[in-house]
């Protein structure tokens, strides 16, 4: 397994040897914040472009190809455009909840990052109940969506939010149960253990039939939980215009958008935890969205 343990350890040792413990911890936090924010910014931009390119190839068109070489900076341009847009709040909306909702979605997306093992020793928090933590936090994002839908004072938003809630209710259980298979096989809830147990081959290819079944269920349930097509009932472009984020504009909309994508990334990372072992999960993610 690819290991960054020596690097992280040496940084930590250096920090704690040079500074006071509290200051070292603060510095550590700052480093984490910087890394995580950087990761989000880069991933969001790259993955959106990847998705658009692949979708364009499927739909016999070129996709973004004007901004930068091969359209590489299209997402940057889109983000800048959204930055320049006015963030509107409807007059009759619940202003506090309306503005709070994007934060919640983002916080959930960030928190989900904590137990992801990017490489050995390169993990924000190797929590020993990782699986439980993930399923607990990931259900929280629906609160942000419900909040957004309810606070918008818009019927499309409301219906979209309610659908999103119903979707979570419908698929959360199956997702949770399918993960159970891997927990039984590994005998641990710690994500790093799960990955370590797949050092010499993925569970998926070791001939356990329940794993294959649970993989399929997990794939479907997680797609549903992240509201991607064909489970995009909460947004349902053609019925509810844009579902729960109909009223959002400008940067708040961008946050919803990114929040959703990060959640996605993370579902894939978890697929990787549970089923896969390597970083090809990202490419897999791009395929999974179409």
């Amino acid at each position, binding site marked *: 397994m690819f290991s960054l343990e020596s690097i992280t350890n040496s940084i930590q040792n250096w920090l704690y040897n040079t500074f006071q413990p509290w200051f070292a911890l603060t510095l550590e936090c700052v480093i984490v914040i910087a890394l995580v924010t950087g990761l989000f910014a880069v991933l969001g931009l790259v993955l959106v472009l990847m998705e658009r390119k692949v979708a364009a190839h499927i739909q016999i068109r070129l996709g973004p190809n004007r901004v930068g070489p091969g359209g590489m900076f299209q997402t940057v341009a889109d983000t800048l455009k959204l930055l320049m*847009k006015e963030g509107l709040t409807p007059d009759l909306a619940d202003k506090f909840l309306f503005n709070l909702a994007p934060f919640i979605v983002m916080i959930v997306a*960030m928190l989900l990052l904590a137990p992801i093992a990017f490489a050995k020793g390169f993990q924000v928090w190797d929590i020993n109940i990782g699986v439980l933590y993930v399923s607990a936090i990931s259900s929280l994002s629906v609160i942000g969506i419900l909040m957004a839908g309810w606070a918008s004072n818009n019927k499309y938003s409301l219906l979209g939010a309610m659908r999103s809630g119903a979707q979570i209710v419908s698929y959360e259980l199956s997702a949770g149960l399918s993960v159970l298979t891997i927990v039984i096989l590994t005998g641990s809830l710690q994500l790093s253990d799960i990955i370590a147990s797949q050092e010499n081959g993925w569970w998926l290819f070791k001939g356990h039939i329940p794993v294959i079944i649970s993989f399929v269920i997990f794939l479907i349930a997680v797609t549903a939980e992240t509201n991607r097509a064909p489970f995009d009932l909460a947004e349902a472009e053609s019925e509810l215009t844009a579902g729960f984020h109909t009223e959002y504009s400008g940067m708040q909309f961008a946050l919803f958008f990114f929040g959703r994508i990060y959640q996605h990334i993370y579902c894939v990372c978890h697929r990787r935890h549970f089923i896969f072992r390597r970083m090809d999960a990202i490419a897999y993610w791009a395929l999974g969205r179409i």
Partner: protein
Amino acid sequence: MGAISLIALIIAAVLFSAGGILLGKILVKKSYNPQKGQAYECGIPTQTSPWQQFHVGYYLFALLFLIFDVELVFMYPWAVVVKKTGMVALFEILVFIFILFMGFLYAHKKGALKWS
């Protein structure tokens, strides 16, 4: 890092979101008119408030979901130790699931899953 990392992550999220929104607020020249403040409803003024009571069926589903979600949480620790404990654990969880399944059947028979 320990649990402190969660606080760091929350701070990161808030900074990320607030930074974006603030930057937008600074860059954008604001304008307002009453039409702009209206909720979007295909260009027609909204009729009837969207803040209404919801169908009670919705809550029944949510309640059922809650029961089974809690059941799931019980099963996680079981899943960790099932390999070591062996057949006894399997039998016990089957009993547990059987009881819950009976409850589910009861709910089904009572029509809790019917939307009416």
